Each structure stands twice: as structure tokens, then as C-alpha cells.
């Protein structure tokens, strides 16, 4: 086949380019991933008791996860488009992560010395990151699927962004079932779970993001 003939074939009736392709793929993926993780939490752990919502803990978890999902989703959308700039979404992600770490540090300093181990470890420090990672898997599959339909020419970074995005969504789901109340705990173990999901995304991306 002559290349000119192919160009003719591609251009004929092509119409305008589709718009907002990244949002159109990532938003349904995010919705599906978050829905599955909330469903899993409800079935496997049950919702946290309602009075807990009168304390700041679940709101800190949910806002942290939601803000991080926005920033990393933005990053993933950029990485779905060749040569797009990453500065702003990377900066936003870092600001959110550092703010959460600072909040955790302030809470740790405000905690009396003898109460600190309990604030750091809670009663589920070991399970928390793994639960966040497990709950992020549906969103990770969905986010990688979404990116595959775009044009990720930087697969490692795209996988990292997809993993962090999925991790944040998994953490949001986990927040609905997790009874830990310490801010230090959230800053440490939620962040670790989200980072693990990011790492997993980066590891499998070269295989998962072929297009």
C-alpha cells in the first residue's frame, strides 16, 4: 500500500479530532475503580460507626485521598499525551504529600510522649498499607486500561501516575472502613499504601501500557 493512499484513507471523512479524550477515559475508570473499592470495604469490613464522622479523622483521610486523586489523575492525563508538560501536576502532588506529612508531624509533636507509639502504630499499622494497596487494584486496572487508550510515550512515569491515582482512590475507599483516628497514622500508613500502589503501577507499566 502506498503511503499517500493510506493518508487519503485516514483523512477521508475524519471529521474533527475527538475532544477531552483523557478525561473521557480516566473519569469512568476512576468512578469504576472507586466504586469497586467502596463496595469491597462495605462487604469485607463494614462501614465505620457513624459517630466517628463527628471526629476529624475520616475527613482528613477522605480529603487527603481526594486531593491526591485529583493531582495524580491530572498527572496521568498529562502522561497520556506525548510531550505534554508535567511540572504543574507533579508540583501539586508533592504539595499535597508534603502538607499531609507536615500535618502528621505537627500531630506527632502535639502528642504526649507516652501516647506517641499508639498514635504512630494504631491497632492496624501493618494491615493498613496492604489494605490500601489491595483496594487500589481495581482502580489500577481501570486506570491502566484508560491510559492504554491514550498515547503514553513515557510508560514508567505513566504507570507511576496511574498507580498513585489508583492508590488515592483505594485509600478513599479504605477511609470508609478504617477506624484509626490518629493523623500521624494517616500520614504514615495511608501514604505508604498509596506509594506502594504507585510503585506497582511503575513496575507493570512497560507491559501493561503497550499500544
Amino acid at each position, binding site marked *: *500500500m502506498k503511503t499517500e493512499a493510506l493518508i487519503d484513507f485516514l*483523512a477521508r471523512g475524519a*471529521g474533527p479530532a475527538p475532544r477531552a479524550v483523557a478525561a473521557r477515559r480516566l473519569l469512568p475508570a476512576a468512578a469504576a475503580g472507586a466504586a469497586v473499592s467502596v463496595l469491597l470495604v462495605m462487604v469485607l469490613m463494614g462501614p465505620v460507626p457513624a459517630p466517628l464522622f463527628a471526629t476529624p479523622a475520616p475527613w482528613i483521610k477522605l480529603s487527603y485521598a481526594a486531593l491526591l486523586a485529583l493531582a495524580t489523575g491530572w498527572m496521568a492525563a498529562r502522561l497520556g499525551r506525548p510531550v*505534554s508538560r508535567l511540572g504543574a501536576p507533579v508540583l501539586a502532588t508533592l504539595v499535597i504529600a508534603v502538607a499531609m506529612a507536615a500535618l502528621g508531624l505537627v500531630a506527632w509533636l502535639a502528642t504526649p510522649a507516652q501516647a506517641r507509639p499508639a498514635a504512630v502504630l494504631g491497632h492496624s499499622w501493618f494491615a493498613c498499607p496492604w489494605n490500601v494497596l489491595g483496594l487500589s487494584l481495581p482502580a489500577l486496572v481501570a486506570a491502566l486500561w484508560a491510559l492504554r487508550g*491514550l498515547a503514553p510515550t513515557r510508560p514508567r512515569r505513566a504507570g507511576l501516575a496511574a498507580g498513585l491515582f489508583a492508590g488515592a482512590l483505594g485509600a478513599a475507599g479504605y477511609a470508609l472502613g478504617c477506624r484509626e483516628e490518629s493523623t500521624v497514622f494517616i500520614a504514615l500508613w495511608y501514604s505508604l499504601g498509596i506509594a506502594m500502589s504507585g510503585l506497582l503501577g511503575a513496575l507493570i507499566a512497560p507491559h501493561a501500557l503497550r499500544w
Partner: protein
Amino acid sequence: MTTASLPIGLPRTHTPPARRVGCASGTIPAPQPAGHACAMGNEPADELEALVRPLWLRAQAGDESAYRKALSAIAGRLRSYLRRRMQGTPDDVEDLVQETLFALHLQRGTYDPGLPVSAWALAIARHKLADHWRRRGRREDLHQALDDTPESLIASTPASDGGTGDIDRLLDALPEAQRAAILLTKLEGLSVSEAAARARVSESALKVQVHRGLKRLASLLRS
């Protein structure tokens, strides 16, 4: 060794234009586009960009003849880009040009008007080239010495012969709905609404079938 970038031993007078400096186009690409810091986006606008950008923006808005011209101009650049990097397998160059054109078309929604068209297109070409090498298991090609002809002298190579794929033949391998959608819009030249009426599906369903069909064609072309 991606650092061995500039053609050593090249007479000074043959130094490529200044726009190449610091982001050598003669760089041997890494298998993964790890050389991102040296992406083509760092280059100042060049002649191709000046020609293609207005055409491309009109094409994105739906101007078919601008789209055809833009793709032709880009194809010339792709050909010289790929030819330089595929000196061991020159027969595959045109196939890869066509594969990249397919990808540009299928992914044209990912073009961001704030960025150079040529940088966007070459990033996709680089990705397709890395994928090609990975599939062929020809990693050794990455280490082949490159001809030291400045790229400016071989820019925009006309197509000498076609690729080996044949769309008419490949169309038969598509699922019926995709094949029908492509036949109606691409070969009979019907508008989307006419084609949708003929195929008795909604316009959006028809567009989806065309897109999926082209995607399938591109992957058939690859194998």
C-alpha cells in the same frame, strides 16, 4: 550509549543547523523513550512546524484537505527520522511510517495545541520504533553506527515505494460491524450521518466502530 550523540569526525562545515545543538537528532534512541529530557519539544519551531501547525490546527477542527496535507508533510519527516534509525532494516521503514501515521490518526485527540505538532508526532514515532525493535527482538540495532549525513540533507524523503500491508485485504479480517463502518465512511465516502442511517446504528456507535476498526487494522498491519 546514548551519550555518543553527535556524529564525531564530521567536518565542521557540515554541522547540522543550530536548532539541533544540545538535542542532537543523531542520538541513538534508548529502547524506552528515556531520553525524554531531550524530547523534540525542546527544539525551537522549525520549518516543518511552521508549515504543519496551521494545517494541523485546521485539521483538528475538521478540515479534511488540511488534514491530508498535514499528514503528508509529517510523513516526510517521519520517513527521514525513521530511515536514519533503521539503517539495518530499510525495507521496514515505510511500514513503520504507515504504522506511525495510523497511531497519529487514532491518537489525534491527545494532541495539545500548546505544543509543537512535530514534537508530538516524533514522540509517537519514537514510541512505535521502540515497540518495533522490541517486537523484532533486534535490540542490537540500537547499537549500530549511524550514517553521519546531517538530517537536514535527508529531510522529508519522498515515498519510493509503498508499505507491505494491504488495507483492502486486511479489511476482510475485521468484524462485520467495523468493516461495514469503514467501508461506508472511508471507501464509499459517506458522511457519518449517512453511513449511520445506512448501517442502522446511531452516529456515535458508527464512530466507535470506525475507530475500533482502524485500531484493529493498525494492529493487523503490524503483525
